[in-house]
């Protein structure tokens, strides 16, 4: 009797989400799948065309350019971001004076709105007189033309993404504070140095968090959109910064090819699913659920 009551309560409590799952998740996903097999523009009803969108994508040079750009970006920004976020978190975890100030400083970048961020960086990254190149110049390095040199536009964006690690860093910091000091002290007594402690105690203890952030990072970096959308419209120069989500948006809203865009969306979804599963499987070996 109690079980039945609990079961019903459980279901009722979960109702908002269950409705949300159906209405805002499953239904759109299925519709999106349907649209991907259609010729559909916002103003006209969908017309079934079978796999034409998919075969067109396969032969679409711009599609492959975007795929390449997005993968390159993700492959560099993700590991780089993780290393820096963890490193920063470890630095901040040392009970230094002024912790609150430091934490705020590193967190600020994630607060700046997209438009301002884009404008700000357009200035900083200017090839001739931008602050970054001026700074590099003062130590004898001639900075490249970040905004118009095809080989340097992606690195510029990666640089900007690193600047925004504040969010991830907070999460690492929180998890570092949960690492039992007893374990660290024991390691010290055994004669471990800082690097060994890190490698054998700290990192394993926060490995679930690292794994979580990695998965979220894969999902996020493959969808990079807002900053390049504002800073490099159309992926200029020469589509060096044309990313997957940007081409998707252009197809949906600028070229009115929503079916085509939906096909792109599904391909992205499947890829993310596969990559996440692979990443989880490969990393599970290293993850320790020591936990509280």
């Amino acid at each position, binding site marked *: 009797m109690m079980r039945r009551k609990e079961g019903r309560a459980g279901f009722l409590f979960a109702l908002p989400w269950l409705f949300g799952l159906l209405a805002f998740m499953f239904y759109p996903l299925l519709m999106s799948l349907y649209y991907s097999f259609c010729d559909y523009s916002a103003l006209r009803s969908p017309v079934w065309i079978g796999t034409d969108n998919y075969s067109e994508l396969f032969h679409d040079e711009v599609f492959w350019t975007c795929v390449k750009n997005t993968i390159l970006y993700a492959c560099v920004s993700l590991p780089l971001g993780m290393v820096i976020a963890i490193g920063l978190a470890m630095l901040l975890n040392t009970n230094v004076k002024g912790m609150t100030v430091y934490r705020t400083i590193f967190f600020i970048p994630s607060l700046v709105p997209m438009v301002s961020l884009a404008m700000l960086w357009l200035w900083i990254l200017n*090839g001739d007189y931008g602050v970054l190149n001026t700074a590099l110049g003062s130590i004898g390095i001639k900075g490249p033309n970040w905004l*118009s040199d095809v080989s340097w536009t992606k690195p510029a964006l990666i640089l900007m993404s690193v600047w925004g690690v504040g969010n991830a860093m907070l999460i690492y910091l929180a998890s570092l504070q949960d690492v039992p000091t007893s374990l660290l002290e024991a390691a010290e007594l055994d004669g471990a140095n800082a690097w060994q402690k890190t490698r054998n105690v700290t990192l394993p203890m926060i490995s679930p968090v690292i794994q979580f952030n990695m998965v979220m990072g894969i999902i996020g970096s493959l969808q990079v959109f807002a900053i390049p959308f504002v800073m490099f419209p159309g992926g200029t120069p020469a*589509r060096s910064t044309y990313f997957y989500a940007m081409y998707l948006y252009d197809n949906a809203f*600028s070229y009115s090819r929503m079916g085509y865009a939906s096909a792109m969306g599904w391909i992205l979804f499947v890829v993310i699913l596969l990559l996440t599963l692979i990443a989880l499987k490969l990393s599970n070996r290293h993850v320790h659920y020591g936990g509280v």
Partner: protein
Amino acid sequence: MVSLLSCATAVPSAMSKLSDLFIPGLISLSLLALAGTELRSHPTEDETKTHIAVWVGWSGFEYDAFQSVVNDYNKSQNKVFVDLLSITGNSTKTLISTSAGIPPEISLLSAAEIPQFADAGAIEVLDDACKQYGWTEDKYVPGYWNVLQYQGHTMALPATPSTVALHYNTRILSQAGYSKPPETIEEMDEMVDKITKVVDGKVKLAGFLPAEPGWWRWSWGPYFGGHLWDGKSMITMNTPENLRAMKWVESFSRKFGPAQIESYKSGFGVFASPENAFLADKVAMEVQGVWMHNFIQKYNPKLKWLAAPFPYPKDRPDLKGHTIIEQDIFVLLKNCKHRKEAIDFLAYLQKQGPMEKLCLGQKKSSPLRVKSPEFWAKHDNPCIHLFDDMAYNKSCFSTPKIGIWPEYEAEIGNALDEVSLLRKTPEDALRDIDARIQPKLDQYLNRLDKRRRAGK
């Protein structure tokens, strides 16, 4: 577990009381917020007059000029009130709202967007209204009238027109020994070689740069007499004239080096500032529109300049006096609520008085053939007659009337990037454009046809 509880209860009791109100507080606030957002997104309408919505992408002084015309209209009668809105990204927003079934009555687009909107079935054909109100070809400057036509129908009405010309810095030109602007491309190339200064591998002054301002990247082909499509179903990028144009664009990178040009360009300031490349004597000649005069007056009135039609290739004198026709246009959206009132407003705008007021306020020429003497007198652009005359020229051109123009344009832009960076040869670039866009056009026309036949 224990630490968790102690952590939670460690919060001082005052804070605790405050945070107890957290959720109830949020809920009450959100009721207020709900009321607020609903009111904001559904403004109450004044019942006494019919309201029509007019959306424009203009801002600043251009918007002000139109607002004053709208005010005149609103004051002149009591039945209809025009709600004028300035919308960033107006084309996309118009498309979105039309697809959502809530279009404005009238929207300001650019003539280049007509095919896309017409094919999508978003805008109304205006042939009947034209007949009713006498908006006929003979009333308008031919260049401006032609861009309103699509597949045999008039799809839009002029808002404000513009043409472009080669603006040149007379001081720099005379210092290099030239008292007249170049007439042919060959003359211009010679001038560019003479005027451009390169010191220590760095560009100090450029005679001309196709990339400055780089606003009409698709236009080089037509300037050399090329066509972007055959008017029916073939993309004709890979043709001799277009190739010649591409090679000419490439020649700048070959002469001065792509990296040097990029480096020079990054030192250019924002368009509307004294650091504008043309205003700051960094570029001696550039293609610009009829509005350029205002910016020169505002940011560097001391600049000595004049305008002339863009040069033509020596062996193509038939192209002499050519220009790009651009036009901001008004379209009537399908399924808008107050069609008749919207057309009446459009009729008001097409009258000479309001039209001249708007065009003068935006410092452009007028699309009507007949212009009042005051219009010319009040216009302070010294070259305004040139800009107006060019629109009568038979060799003036504008964007191709295809529905896939945005995608085609993006492709051309990309090709120009590749060629200017010397990453692709002009031949390859043009061939690639054709190869990529032709199938897209075929498919587009195909599907359009299927829909028409299925009655969708």
